[in-house]
């Protein structure tokens, strides 16, 4: 990109093949940007629309590890996981929690069998998740961005 683009684009002396190649490069660059932006925001963390709490990635992580049981507005948190069969389950663990399925399960096994934690509830589809979160003030979950409706509030995209 050290050559000035408009010279290569509009100079007749450069020839058509060079112009063609540049156009391909632009298409490639545009599609790279498009796809990377898609994969960056393909999952949305959602709460009830009335939830006015503040969130950060650290808070979301704590909530889903059972370490934070209240929102910043004081309401009790009801975290809900996507079923392991949904692609968002692994994506969420990978991007937000930073643990593998096995590490997560070992972590919860310790808490559950010593009576010090309850596994988050599990919902089997994005439709279920959106409808459950839309009617529960304390709910927090995550879905594919394309499943979001105006009945829930998006607090983070991953």
């Amino acid at each position, binding site marked *: 990109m050290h050559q000035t683009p408009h010279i290569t684009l509009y100079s007749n002396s450069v020839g058509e093949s060079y112009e063609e190649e540049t156009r391909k490069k632009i298409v490639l660059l545009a599609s790279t940007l498009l796809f990377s932006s898609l994969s960056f925001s393909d999952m949305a963390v959602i709460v009830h629309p009335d939830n006015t709490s503040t969130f950060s990635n650290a808070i979301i992580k*704590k909530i889903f590890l059972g*370490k*934070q*049981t*209240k929102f910043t507005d004081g309401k*009790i948190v009801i975290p809900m996981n996507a079923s*392991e069969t949904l692609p968002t389950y692994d994506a969420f663990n990978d991007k937000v929690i930073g643990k*593998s*399925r*096995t590490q*997560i*399960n*070992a972590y919860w*096994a*310790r808490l*559950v*069998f*010593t*009576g010090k934690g*309850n596994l988050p509830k599990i919902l089997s589809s994005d439709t279920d998740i959106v409808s459950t979160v839309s009617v529960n003030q304390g709910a927090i979950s995550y879905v594919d961005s394309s499943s979001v409706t105006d009945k829930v509030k998006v607090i983070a995209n991953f």
Partner: protein
Amino acid sequence: MKILKTISIASLAFALASPTLAEVRFSGFGSLVAGQTLEDDEKLNADFYDVGQYENTTTFKAESVLGLQVTADIAPDLKATGQLLAKGTDEFKPELDWYYLTYQAADDWTLMAGRRNIPMYYYSEFSEVGYAYPWIRPPSNLYWWQVTQFDGFHASYDFSTENYTNSVTAFYGNEYSNDNKEMLYYAEIGNRQLNNAAIVRVDEYWTDIAGFNVNVIGDSFDVRMVYFRNDRKRIDTNVNGETAIRASASGFSQQFYGVGGNINIDNFTIIYDANYVECDDDVGTVFPTYLISTVYNIGQYQPYLSYSKADHWQTKSDNENNYEEHYMATIGLRYNLSSTASAKLQFDHFEDEGDKATGWDYHGNSQTVSAAVDFIF
């Protein structure tokens, strides 16, 4: 404590009989473990408390276990939990090992009452849940106490700071372990007698068990500190039914101190636990123990190494050091079969450094191979 037991069982029964009133959750864990020592005359205590041992023939009974947990929400902030455990060392006869009520007194205050494990060592409260740790077992030469459970009360306070999640738990309780399995085993191998007749039953009482745990969890580490104290009493019964309090193991208190945890650095997990038990008996008995283990996390594989050391001194005696002493060096591999099951293969070298002249080397050296499948459901 019998009242407490009745209350928790009644609560469970009530909850089970009234599905419309209470949400009941079932979950469980299990380990199928096979192992044996390499040489004819070798023996390894893999489970001191339940006398789960490996000898030179393969057995599944020393450590295999199946646990079923039932939790019932019996009121908005009150739940009842029961844990039914079937262990190979008890011929898989199911026993209600844990039963307790949990009351969420406030968002950050939890009260528990009932029967649970004493929170002694880092892994004490979940030592039966093989899936929750890398090895086949937490090093058995540290988890050597004849009392592991108690009937009691716990009060926990949880608090968070920006980077840490913390909790402080205070506990109090008693354990009257009648016909203690581990103590009877020692009486038998030591041909112990009372009034010239073989001892056939040993009762071990730990009373006024009182202490606290402090837990600090950060992003890449956690630390757990423990202190508790209790009074000790041991009663022997011989084959003729005669009983006597054993003076050398009665009428004193002991203090238990410990610090343990995990540190995660890149793909490595370092696990450590250091403990010190001090008895205010006439001879000044102390038991210093420690564990250090390194686990390498690579995909579904977790190779690991550990070293655990247990010692026994009499600080007020002329002979201070020549008592029980042993270490265990372990190498093994965990492979995650699925997100709820893992397979493990482990080799343990147990070196008995106990005093030979006085017979404190009664465990003997051993080399043991064991394989396990652990699962949760």
